């Protein structure tokens, strides 16, 4: 988590997508609209989701708790969450 810096929404979206792609290599994002539950659309099971959380946390450099899971439901939510969380962490590190 040493590399934490705040992400803008574009970067956050990239992180989310790359993380999902790492878990579901052939994820077809054309099927996922911003407010779709991507877990359902892309058929992520709980193990996949845990992997996603792991990768997201790693990539963004912020902790993600189980309590945060509901905020990782759609792409839009996830981006919002990451932007907010990375910002908090950047500020808290100063």
């Amino acid at each position, binding site marked *: 988590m040493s590399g934490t810096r705040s992400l803008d929404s574009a970067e956050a979206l990239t992180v989310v997508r790359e993380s999902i792609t790492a878990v*579901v*290599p*052939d994820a*077809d994002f*054309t*099927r996922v609209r911003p407010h779709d539950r991507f877990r*359902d659309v892309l*058929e992520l*099971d*709980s*193990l996949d989701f*845990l*992997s996603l*959380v*792991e990768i997201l*946390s790693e990539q963004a450099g912020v*902790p*993600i*708790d*189980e309590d945060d899971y509901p905020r990782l439901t759609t792409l839009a939510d996830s981006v919002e969450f990451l932007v907010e969380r990375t910002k908090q962490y950047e500020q808290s590190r100063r």
Partner: protein
Amino acid sequence: MAEFTMPSLGADMDEGVLQEWLVAPGDRVGKGDAVAVVETDKAAIEVECFTSGTVGRLLVEPGTRVPVGTPLALIDTAQAPAAQAAEKPTAEARAPGARTTRTRGTGGAGAARKGRAETPAGRAAVHARVRAPKAAAVPEGLPAPEPTEKAAPPPPSAPPSPPPAPAPPSPPSAAGEPAAAVGPLVRHLADGLGVDLGSVHGSGPGGRVTRADVAQAARPAPARRRVTPYARRLARDLGVDLEGVHGTGDGGAVRAADVRAAARAAQAAPERSRPAVPVRARDGGHVPAAEAAAVSGEGARDDGRQREDAMRRAIGELMSRSKREIPHYYLSTVIDLAPAQEWMHRRNRGRPPSARLVTAALLLKAAALAAREVPQLNGHWQDGAFTPGTGVHLGVAVSLRGGGLLTPVIHDADTLTPEDLMATLKDLVRRARQGRLRGSELSGATLTVTSLGEQGVEAVFGVIHPPQVALVGFGAVVERPWAVGGLLGVHPVVTATLSGDHRATDGAIGARYLTAVDRLLHEPGDMPGSTIEERE
């Protein structure tokens, strides 16, 4: 002898009307003298000649429209008197002010037609466009057609000649139709189908219109589907038939996403009623992992499809055999997961995601421990008798993203701590999806667990994998009103099911098993291997 020609009087002038002659045959003209008045679209202009001499024949009578460059008169440059042969146009022909081409029709109708002019004999020298010959073959006695082409006027010197025989047109109904090229049968067919033969392209010899041509013309064009160009291209690449694709775009347009969805659906269609079975090849052995793995590479698409086909056949055979041979009974119970999840959350708190448990791991752990408690369900039915398993080797049904499923085995699952079980599960699932399982990891299961609940359904009643004698199913974890100790609350619950082989056990055994699962999940901390960390 020099020719005086219709001059170009402007950039946009291609033809002009000789309006008036300012000279007569025999007149002396000098270079630069105005000799005629020419009317263009813009104005009447006096035009000059560029040769000096004597005006000879006037070749074009006033009122005639001719292209630029058309000889209008001859000028004798030999200083000789004008040739007597040159005859002035008749007074009639020289009527001044005529703005349009003069007409001299055969009847009132003809005379009134603008642009009509005779083509007397001896006109060969004049720039005249010739009427298309097609009308010549048509019977006489019909009204004269209105010619659209311009015909040149008679040279003034030529004696008036009777108008040529009018060239009547073909009957209107056959207009534009190659009369000789349509047989009666075809004509009849066209009539019947309401096809205008004039618009039919003939594909037969010599452009003959065939029956097929008429039929083709009669067929209504199929309603064109709205498909985006990219989607069309993609459909071709993926071999998707656009006919069946549902369009979600504007006005029902098929977009790329729709094509991809259709391509996926085509792959997934046979596994809609996905059974929880391990995959075996036709010889009864397990499908080698490498072969069974879903192939997503573009180049290997065909190979991948073949493998999927093989996998489907294997699943089909195994399941058919199961349903043919095994008398299934089914049980279900709803289990309160609040204690288990609470325990798990507590345990996960503060741990990095990589060290966290998921509910599925607890369910597997419970399923394995319950199998140890109820060993009649843990083993194989072979040669008409039950053989208990030597350990609890839990088959876990893993669906593959490309379609199909594999059932890797967690050996001695009952002895593993939740952490180890979790780690093993993650590893097996990952490698199953990557096609990296070893053969041993696919064989030897004594009981299979499927948890379609991950896909959102509440209960799954599976098909037993022969030679096993039971299959445990977990549905989705859902929140439901739940009473505990007379108090109603919202609890996470899961529906656990058991499919049993009635040859090996009766429902009571099965019920005992599900009860054990329920109990174990109520006391997750008491599950062997769970307590040590809990006490830290």
